[in-house]
């Protein structure tokens, strides 16, 4: 594969040689270069070889006195070149999910049990121009109680020296919600997204990126399986993402830092910092430890687990039956901090096959919130994520 018109001056001679990305990541690069917000540092051309990737995700979460959700999800992704100026990408996944979810806060009693299968697919076509790309994409997701379709258009434009790339994207999604408890029927949610970004080569071993996304949605945002959930029927979300990659010559390793600031009309503000370090090892192995920190404030209509002395749980003090005030007791809308750590190990087998395994441990606690107090009275939340994968070029 090439995807790159970069040339490298061999440091020990004056020979100019084409840059051949190290074999380990060849498949990764093939897929990465057609992703939104991913800007190349070189002239971008259609991939010369096809790539196929496979992952199997095993997810399990819990709180101290309750095993909550288990999900197993195989997924596949294929990238095919179509001549010199086009490529097509197709992907799909099946997610088998089951378990129990608290109906309010982290209450074990009355947790709703469920089992569902989610099937999702995506298709994208990319046109490569001398100084940019244009990608038209579509995706679909279907489960028993929720359907979603979306369309997207994304583009990139590079400066003449390929040191700066501007990216943009627009997308629209149309969701339909039919919960199994028939609390609502045929509810709709429509969302529009825009992205603007710039990627800048900062030096021979540094590259940075700044993206801004804004999403605006109208429709049903409540969780029909939560006891008293009633959320605004409109939501705006802004995210600012800054990323910086640095290559360490001394170790041949690469550090990858990112920070995201998030803000929405539910008055949730969140900070997310992640750090990865990619270290090549002998015999085709690569190890990547990762660390992620997240902190968010609560939605303005989130209520703490304090209940009415007469009606008891889940009713907050002074709750008005039949009222239409906004309320949520969803742990995900509370104020908390989250820590996540893990590692990914990859092994290249021959020129074209790469195998990988990733293990991650995730925890949420109210007391871990940064810049103020977290929501009180909730149990800690744990998740264990294991993923195995393979990718192949042909």
């Amino acid at each position, binding site marked *: 594969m090439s995807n790159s018109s970069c040339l490298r001056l061999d440091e020990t001679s004056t020979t100019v040689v084409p840059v051949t990305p190290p074999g380990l*990541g060849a498949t990764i690069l093939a897929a990465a270069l057609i992703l939104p917000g991913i800007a190349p540092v070189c002239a971008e051309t259609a991939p010369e070889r096809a790539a196929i*990737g496979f992952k199997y995700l095993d997810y399990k979460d819990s709180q101290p006195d309750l095993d909550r959700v288990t999900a197993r999800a195989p997924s596949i992704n294929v990238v095919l070149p179509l001549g010199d100026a086009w490529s097509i990408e197709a992907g799909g996944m099946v997610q088998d999910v089951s378990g129990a979810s608290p109906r309010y806060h982290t209450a074990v009693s009355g947790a709703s049990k469920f089992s569902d299968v989610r099937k999702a697919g995506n298709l994208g076509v990319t046109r490569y121009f001398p100084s940019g790309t244009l990608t038209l994409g579509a995706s679909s997701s279907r489960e028993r109680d929720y359907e979603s379709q979306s369309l997207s258009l994304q583009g990139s434009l590079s400066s003449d020296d390929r040191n700066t790339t501007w990216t943009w994207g627009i997308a629209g999604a149309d969701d339909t919600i039919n919960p199994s408890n028939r609390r609502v029927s045929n509810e709709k949610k429509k969302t529009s997204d825009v992205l603007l970004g710039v990627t800048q080569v900062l030096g021979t071993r540094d590259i940075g990126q700044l993206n801004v996304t804004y999403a605006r949605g109208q429709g049903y945002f409540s969780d029909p399986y939560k006891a008293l959930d009633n959320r605004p029927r409109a939501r705006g979300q802004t995210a600012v993402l800054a990323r910086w990659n640095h290559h360490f010559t001394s170790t041949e390793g690469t550090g990858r830092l990112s920070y995201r600031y998030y803000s929405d009309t539910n008055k949730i503000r969140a900070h997310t910092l992640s750090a990865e370090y990619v270290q090549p090892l002998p015999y085709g192995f690569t190890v990547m430890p990762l660390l992620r920190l997240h902190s968010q404030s609560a939605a303005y209509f989130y209520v703490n687990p304090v209940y009415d002395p007469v009606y008891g749980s889940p009713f907050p003090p002074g709750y008005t039956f039949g009222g239409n005030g906004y309320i949520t007791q969803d742990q995900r809308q509370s104020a908390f901090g989250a820590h996540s750590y893990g590692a990914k190990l990859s092994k290249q087998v021959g020129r074209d096959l790469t195998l990988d395994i990733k293990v991650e441990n995730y925890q949420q606690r109210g007391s871990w919130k940064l810049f103020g107090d977290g929501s009180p009275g909730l149990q800690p939340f744990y998740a264990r994520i294991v993923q195995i994968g393979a990718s192949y070029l042909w």
Partner: protein
Amino acid sequence: MNSGFDRRPGKHADLAVVAILCALSGGCTLLTPVQPWQKGTLARPEMTFGGDSLDLKNSEHVYQNREAASGGSGVGGGGCGCN
């Protein structure tokens, strides 16, 4: 419990973002341009902002269904009713 949807989020944050984007674009002129033959390291897969697309999708799916925040890296993609 309040009501009403009245404004876009973080108007000041939006302005700051625009300022940062402008500064970064303008600031690029202050950087010494890197020549094509100096981009061998930058072309390494781990120096891109993508990486393993399926891995990224899985990670984002997990986080956005266990936290309130999402976005920043792209647009599009189907939603879900994940509990």
